[in-house]
């Protein structure tokens, strides 16, 4: 993970801010699969995931025009996706997050991973999936999302431990 803005990202953001359509197409081509994964992991079904994806697709152009040169593209895409999902799924910031570290941990198998993922509160699941697919440092995500860095780290930890818990916590 890095919070440094690469020269490539800086060029891309400059083009996006200038309204370069090709830069937007490049951006979508690069990030559409991770964005789709997020939508699919948060939606109730494929059709709902399509609605979420289309919402992000529609909001990406105006958002990209206002992007800062101080944060990597992955983090700015991540923040936009999070913001749109929060709004569309009515996700609220949790009042408190309990992190349960299990006595026994094991990587979930392919057959149970979907169920385990679905069992995680959506407010925490979105942060875990953002982490898996966008790799944005908690400090940077906190800076551009308005969430506290400690909350992001705690949410990430709570979801991660829940996924590897063996049996019922």
């Amino acid at each position, binding site marked *: 993970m890095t919070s440094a803005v690469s020269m490539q990202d800086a060029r891309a953001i400059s083009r996006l801010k200038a*309204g370069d*359509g090709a830069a*937007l197409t490049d951006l*979508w*081509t690069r990030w*559409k*699969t991770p964005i*789709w*994964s997020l939508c*699919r*992991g*948060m*939606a*109730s*079904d494929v*059709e*709902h*995931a*399509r609605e*979420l*994806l*289309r919402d992000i*697709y*529609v909001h990406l*152009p*105006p958002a*990209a*025009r206002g992007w800062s040169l101080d944060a990597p593209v992955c983090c700015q895409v991540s923040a936009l996706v999070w913001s749109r999902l929060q709004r569309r*799924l*009515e*996700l609220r910031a949790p*009042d408190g997050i309990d992190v349960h570290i299990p006595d026994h*941990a*094991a*990587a*979930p*198998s*392919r057959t*149970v*991973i*979907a*169920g*385990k*993922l*679905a*069992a995680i509160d*959506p407010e925490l699941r979105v942060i*875990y999936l953002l*982490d*898996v*697919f966008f*790799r944005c440092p*908690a400090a940077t995500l906190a800076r551009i999302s308005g969430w506290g860095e400690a909350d992001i*780290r705690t949410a*990430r930890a709570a979801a*991660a*431990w829940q*996924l*590897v818990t063996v049996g*019922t916590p």
Partner: protein
Amino acid sequence: MTLDVSHARQILPCFVCGDLPPQIAVQVQALLDAHPQLAAEADALKGAEGACRALMERLAEEYPDDLLDFDDLSLSADPDPVPTLAAPLRPWMALLAAAASLLLVVGAVTALHASQPALQGLPDQHALHVAADDPAFIAQTDPATLGQALVAGGVEPGLAMVPDLSALGLDLVGGQPVSGRPGAVLVYQGQGGHRYVCQLYSGAPPTDPPDAVRHVAGTTLRGFQRGNLGVVVWQAYGMFCMFTGDGPVDQLLAMISKRVALG
């Protein structure tokens, strides 16, 4: 600052995803080298990430091909434009527009009725579900395990979030996938063996006018009385829930309000 194993476990998820300052990451790595149990936990967390990625790669095939590029969108387009007054229409254009609007409305209403579960059929559905004798019924009292079983049975992960209603004095009996449309049915049992059914569906809820409405913690609960059956409908996380139980709807609304207020 020197880390011990207990502290290292708390920050292990951040270590696994590479989001720790280098000086801390070095200490965690040293503890991993010295403590096989901690190393195994780190491997499990990495494995969970890998399993998530693999799951999503399988689902990536469903990516909608109609979203390929931005040819149809302007960079300056505002997706939530402020409504503006349109220029006046000529009479014949207004007539055409009215006719088109009417067709759209009729089409939309027809589509809504075709896609929504009918509230009038709920008493029969409720009776069938509380009997829990359908071959597809999964008798399972643990919410997480039932969620996994429902997904394995074909329920979309987002609809397999089985709520724990023990705070309301309701014990989970089991559940089953809905046949013919994405959805799940959950059955709970309260004191005296009184059973309640929770149906989860994606999409829009029924539009029948409610008999009672409550607003709790940002959630709107709509109550319906169908004979002796109370029905409460609300939306959350992109799906809607229909909770049914014998008795007055006000009693059910009070029960669900308590659950929603608990978060």
